[in-house]
């Protein structure tokens, strides 16, 4: 019985669906073709408020492609995306951001010659009454949001090319959570970070989750995935090969899905085993 206790704290997907009927994001039958190659092949995925869904797969399995489609950085060849039940079509990243979908890219997507506030507000600059850039206010706001993530962040007016990997990551994260975010796509958010910063990101994910933000976490780090996610979806060769509650599977099951594209032949849901 003891093993069930932590699971009780974490409502499973079915319960979540009862709590809030419409998913934040619903992707149905998404396809992306490059010439004859199907990078994403009829993938469906949904995400509910306050849920962390891990997106796993080999490099080239199509997970980044799928995330880019949701972020508006790439247009799908076929399929439908619904946000809060409304069908949307994203022509460019601004459309996705307007729908409350923010993305932290693995490459961070920072303009190296600009400073932290300019990057944080890039594309959404604060302006004065006369339409001029309000650099003072952007600096002030950046100071606040960056201090929340990393109290030691002081050199805000340096170009980001001169900052450490951790600081750059913090700017990318701050940019994604500063605005009115409902869905957060995190592509390998801890790949460039040290242990303490990784722990900070994990805390942040839990905090955002508690605020009701839906998070799609692309990660290779099995520890992070099992630590943070409520559900996982696994992609292999462009197809979705598995979608499971995190309590149903073991790390070996997930590895089998990633590598072979299928569960072990003798698989049965882990949480049910425990219950028996």
């Amino acid at each position, binding site marked *: 019985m003891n093993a069930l206790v932590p699971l009780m704290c974490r409502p499973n997907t079915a319960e979540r669906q009862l709590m809030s009927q419409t998913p934040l994001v619903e992707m149905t039958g998404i396809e992306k073709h490059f010439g004859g190659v199907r990078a994403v092949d009829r993938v469906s995925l949904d995400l509910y408020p306050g849920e962390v869904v891990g997106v796993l797969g080999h490099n080239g399995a199509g997970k980044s492609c799928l995330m880019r489609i949701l*972020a508006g*950085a790439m247009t799908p060849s076929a399929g439908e995306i619904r946000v809060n039940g409304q069908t949307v079509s994203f022509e*460019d*990243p*601004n459309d996705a*951001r307007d729908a409350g979908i923010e*993305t932290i*890219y693995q*490459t*961070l*997507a*920072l*303009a*190296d*010659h*600009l*400073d932290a506030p*300019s*990057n944080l507000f*890039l*594309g*959404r*600059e604060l*302006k004065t009454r006369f*339409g*001029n*850039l309000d650099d003072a206010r952007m600096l002030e706001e950046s100071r606040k949001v960056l201090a929340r993530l990393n109290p030691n962040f*002081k*050199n805000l*007016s*340096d*170009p980001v*090319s*001169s900052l450490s990997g951790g600081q750059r990551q913090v700017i990318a994260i701050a*940019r994604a959570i500063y605005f009115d975010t409902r869905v957060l796509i995190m592509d390998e958010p801890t790949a460039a970070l040290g242990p303490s910063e990784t722990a900070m990101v994990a805390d942040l994910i839990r905090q955002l989750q508690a605020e009701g933000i839906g998070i799609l976490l692309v990660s290779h780090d099995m520890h992070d995935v099992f630590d943070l996610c409520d559900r996982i979806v696994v992609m292999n060769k462009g197809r979705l090969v598995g979608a499971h509650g995190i309590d149903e599977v073991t790390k070996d099951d997930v590895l089998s899905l990633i590598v072979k594209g299928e569960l072990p032949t003798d698989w049965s849901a882990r949480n049910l085993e425990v219950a028996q």
Partner: protein
Amino acid sequence: MSQAVKPAQGRTSTPLAGLMPDATKIHRLSALLTLLLLIAGFSLASQAFFSVNNGLTILLQTSVIGLLGIGMTMVIITGGIDLSVGSVLALSGVATAMTVKAGLPVAPAMAIGVVVGAACGAVNGLVVTRLKIPPFVATLGMMLMARGLALQLTGAAPISQLGEAFGRLGNGALFRVVEMQPNGFPKVIFPGIPYPAILLLLVAIAAAYMLSRRQIGRHIYATGSHQEAARLSGVRVDQVKLYAYVMSGALAGLAGNVLMSRLVTAQPSEGVMYELDAIAAAVIGGASLSGGVGTVSGTMIGAFIIGILRNGLNMAGVSAFIQQIVIGAVVIGAVWIDQIRNRP
């Protein structure tokens, strides 16, 4: 943290920011120092160099390169280059002259010239963003087409007898003081500030304001700094680039009007190789050809370095061929400094 060493400063510095005051500022300072050294050197070499009249001549001569250089700076910051400005300058001047000949007053005719320049820039921008042709090739094509069109339209002959009003922009001056002498001839006491210099100042202030205080300026830097990052951040990079090329074309058109007005003749073969002077001005002033870096004030210093070099070498009796060698060496030197600056 090397916080204490570093004085409070603006956005533009480099990875060395912690060790040095600010590499961009150093570059600009060194350019300014070069400018002052040139002035001092030429003043010693020639009595006539350091005079009010010659100073105004330099202002006049530099204004065309300065206008081209400002447009070029915007394009270079986006990570592109515009090789067509010399030809667009000629085409715009010819367009203005032909409209004047057709009977339109000078002011609207000049506006049409600027629009023709902007249209050439728009074609450059569309070829770069829609057809995905590298800027070097796209604007090289426009360089040939605009020159060819200018020559074709005029039959390669200059258009003259454009009237006094046409020459006012290029030859007029503010605060000119003329005194009538007893013998009936006018004597110029103060030649006045040439209109082209005033125009250059106004355009430079407007461009600097646009680049540093407006959203489009911020997006120009972001696009040149990291195009994909800018796109993912919601910057419409294609529109930003198009804007930069249109501005460059329009300023080339304006420069064409100034130059043709000064000559009171539209020369379809004017402005050959001017693009190189404009690029040199931007690069000497600290713009980086890999994008993301550059300022209008730097380009102004660069334009005056080239202008003063030309003028001073002329005054010192150095041949035009040697001048080319010297300016070529200066450009290589400036890019070399840029390389050192960007070395991690």
